[in-house]
């Protein structure tokens, strides 16, 4: 317990090593499985089960999930908790005013979080989310009992703690830029979760891929159509190039 407290204090006092603009740890690269339907479906399930309780995804319709291979019936049977119509949008289960009262801030809408959290020089929003959801640690100094390395002093508890278990960051004292600092070295598993670390990382990868997809559901179509458009335009550019040459060869 004391060790945890001490580590927490040390974290707050001096994190060195790569710093993000938010004051958090450098971001890991998210796996980006937005073309893997199985991963996206698993991510959708995790999202609906763990996130929609407090967060909304107000611009995302349930029936859009057919784009990742789910039928209306599958959506109705497994994913419709807050409504009964598959054409409705993903509203949260919680009342925003109650949420503000309990957490201090209204849990933000997540439809676009994978796009809005990108930061030049640090990584994509997906990278941030992938890091954030995997760097929670136990911190008794906080009201929720949790803190986070990517978003220090976050007001959100570790909703997925049952899957990941309880962890604490481990620091070593090193010389950085000519002075002593606490450098983050790794994690200590205090109590296990239902998933192994590898399984948990994979689950978060799925969830983050889903969030990435949900932020722009037309992205896969966009790329597919784009390939054809560019092929056509290459042909057209060739034709117009020869057309231009055919006329200009007369000009001396």
């Amino acid at each position, binding site marked *: 317990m004391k060790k945890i407290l001490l580590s927490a204090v040390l974290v707050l006092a001096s994190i060195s090593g790569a710093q993000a603009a938010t004051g958090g740890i450098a971001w890991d690269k998210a796996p980006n499985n937005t073309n893997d339907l199985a991963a996206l479906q698993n991510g959708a399930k995790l999202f609906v089960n763990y996130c929609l309780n407090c967060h909304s995804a107000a611009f995302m*319709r349930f*029936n859009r999930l057919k784009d990742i291979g789910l039928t209306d019936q599958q959506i109705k049977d497994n994913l419709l908790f807050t409504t009964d119509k598959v*054409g409705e949008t993903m509203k949260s289960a919680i009342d925003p005013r109650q949420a503000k009262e309990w957490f201090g801030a209204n849990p933000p809408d997540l439809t676009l979080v994978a796009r809005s959290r990108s930061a030049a020089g640090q990584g994509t929003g997906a990278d941030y989310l992938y890091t954030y959801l995997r760097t929670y640690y136990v911190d008794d100094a906080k009201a929720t009992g949790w803190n986070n390395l990517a978003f220090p002093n976050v007001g959100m508890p570790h909703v997925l703690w049952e899957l990941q278990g309880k962890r604490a960051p481990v620091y070593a004292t090193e010389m950085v830029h000519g002075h002593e600092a606490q450098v983050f070295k790794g994690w200590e598993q205090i109590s296990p979760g239902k998933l192994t670390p590898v399984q948990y990382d994979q689950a978060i990868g799925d969830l983050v891929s889903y969030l990435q997809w949900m932020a722009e559901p037309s992205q896969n179509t966009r790329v597919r159509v784009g390939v054809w458009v560019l092929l*056509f335009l290459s*042909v*057209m550019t060739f034709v117009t190039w020869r*057309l231009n040459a055919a*006329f200009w060869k007369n000009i001396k």
Partner: protein
Amino acid sequence: MSDTLAGNTPADPSKRTWIIASTCTGIVGAAATAVPFVSTFQPSERAKAAGAAVEVDISAIKPGEKITVEWRGKPVWIVRRTPEQLATLSTLNGQLADPDSKRKQDEFTPVYARNEGRSIKPEFLVTVGICTHLGCSPSDKFQLGAQASLPDDWKGGFLCPCHGSTFDMAGRVYKNKPAPDNLEIPPHMYLSDSKLLIGEDTQA
């Protein structure tokens, strides 16, 4: 020389080839570009969701009672007909404009409603409550006998307050009335004995 400079009619076959090639690619490109723009005119997902099929619980409707639900902005009536009301249906054929619902069947009477009661279950009439004349919503006139604007032998049905069209308990229009057609039967299906789905009639 000035001929080719003005470029009105290309004396040069290679020019002609490339003009034709560019015109063709241009037309294909223009058409392909127009498709997404014109597609934005189609009903959006929001419109389709708002127009989605409506599930209705019909278990609480008592015989002789009518409920109204909204589907695609239109009132849809669900009437639980009594055996007496059903019995009158066959006696009215002479007075009706289209007793067998043969007119414009694709528009007003789907296949499963091409029967005497114009319904799937004889007991339940499911019809769009909009007069086929000019779009007012007819009033319920289930009481039998003479009433204002109704004949002395009135057997029950609907009266449109705007121009006086009358319809029977199967939504069939009477002769010599302004309305030309029977009331529209919307696509619908029963999900169970107590659950009616209005807006769809196949398990898509």
